[in-house]
């Protein structure tokens, strides 16, 4: 059986990859998200960020009193372009046959 242990299941980020990240001096949740891709898949971190924080606290890389998730990016859950196009959001969209 594989020894790999997954922290982020959407992006297949393993515990060994987190340790690699820490060894490179990247120790904050924002840096780790970007270096490993953790939390950038369909769940957008909802499954893995708490686990990441716990691992960082165990490694002494994060103070539990100041632990924060990375910046949440909308939408809250995946939404199709069709749904967003049908909602009346934003400025009037120029029709395709516009002049100029």
């Amino acid at each position: 059986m594989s020894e790999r242990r997954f922290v982020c299941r959407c992006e297949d980020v393993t515990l060994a990859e987190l340790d690699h990240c820490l060894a490179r001096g990247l120790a904050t949740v924002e840096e780790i998200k970007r270096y490993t891709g953790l939390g950038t898949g369909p769940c957008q971190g909802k499954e893995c960020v708490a686990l990441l924080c716990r691992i960082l606290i165990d490694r002494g890389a994060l103070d539990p009193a100041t632990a924060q998730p990375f910046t949440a990016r909308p939408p809250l859950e995946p939404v199709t372009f069709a749904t967003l196009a049908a909602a009346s959001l934003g400025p009037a969209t120029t029709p395709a046959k516009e002049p100029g």
Partner: protein
Amino acid sequence: MSAELHAMGSATQPLPPEVDVAIVGAGIMGLALAYHLARLARDLKIAVIERGYLVSGASGRNGGGLRMQWGDAGNVRLMMESIDECKGLAQELGINLWFRQGGYLFLARSEAGEQRLVRNAELHAEVGAPTRLLAPAEAQAIVPQLDVSDVRLASFNPEDGVVFPWPFVWGYATQAVRHGARLRTHTAVTRVEPVGDRYRLQLSTGESLLAARVVNATGAWSHGLNAQLGIHLPNQPHRHEILSSEPLKPFLDPLVVDLGSGLYFSQSTRGELVTGITLPDADDGSDTSLSLHSSLRFLGHISRTLVQLMPIVASMKVLRQWVGPYDVSPDGDAIVGPSPGHPRFVQVCGFTGHGFMMAPAVGRLLARWLADGTQHPMLTRWDPGRFASGQAHRREDMIIG
């Protein structure tokens, strides 16, 4: 961990009290410059100081496009250099940059747009960029899912492409450090003041350092440091939104730009559709405030425009949206070189949303100038003094997003 791990700076990296060059801002510009300068001038002491983490600014927030298709010969030549540089850069920097040359496909749906593409193609032929004009059906042969029913003309350059911006930044950071530059992250420069013929930089940690020359590579955030020295330059931040979708198998080769709406979209090597659009400013003035909030109005506007042009994406899902600032220069040209009244305080700002793609070339040519004074036609053109002397001219009309 293994010996080939070269740290790329940290919040605890010690800095010497005196340096030859202090680069403020560890975005792609500051780091490409640090890398080339550290290689060219091995005896120079170089420090790079970053307020946040690597890729926290515009270098981590852009769409990763690189194109030769500009409206001005100087920009076309510069981007030919930059794209050429990218071809060997993954090996040179020792990191996968996810550089993929799928071309840029520009679509014109108006007579004015058509004329721009015709004029550009003539210019590109003169300069030697392999751009060709395409009939709508030929554009559709490249991207079969496009609705080209009202496209009048398209242009395509197969050498244009996309990268994943983050590893670019880490690659330059790693190699800059490996060549001796000191890279300190999570540390702000809170104050800059002239001391004799040097500058003293006060840091948020309470430290200070003296620098013979300072480079302001803070882009959209550059106004604050400049103002402390009485340097008044006209570049301004401007908020731009972007989003990415769920990942799909590769289906889209080029980055597509619709000239009329300012919509652009490409498929990253990760499989996500990455897309942005020109969005009219909100009426609350927030677009020039460096506020990085995402908006619903962007989602609605871009989704309508995208679904119209590329109906098949209607059922794709948006995963996340974010914001990054353009650092807009009033004439569309970058602001690079000695500051008015402060020849040893050097700007590398004002790239108007296109700094990332230009950085591979700019890092090299600016390093040469700092190392031994070698000039370059673009450096002459980008002189920060041009605004005060009335020499600013708008040459470029292919600014997208």
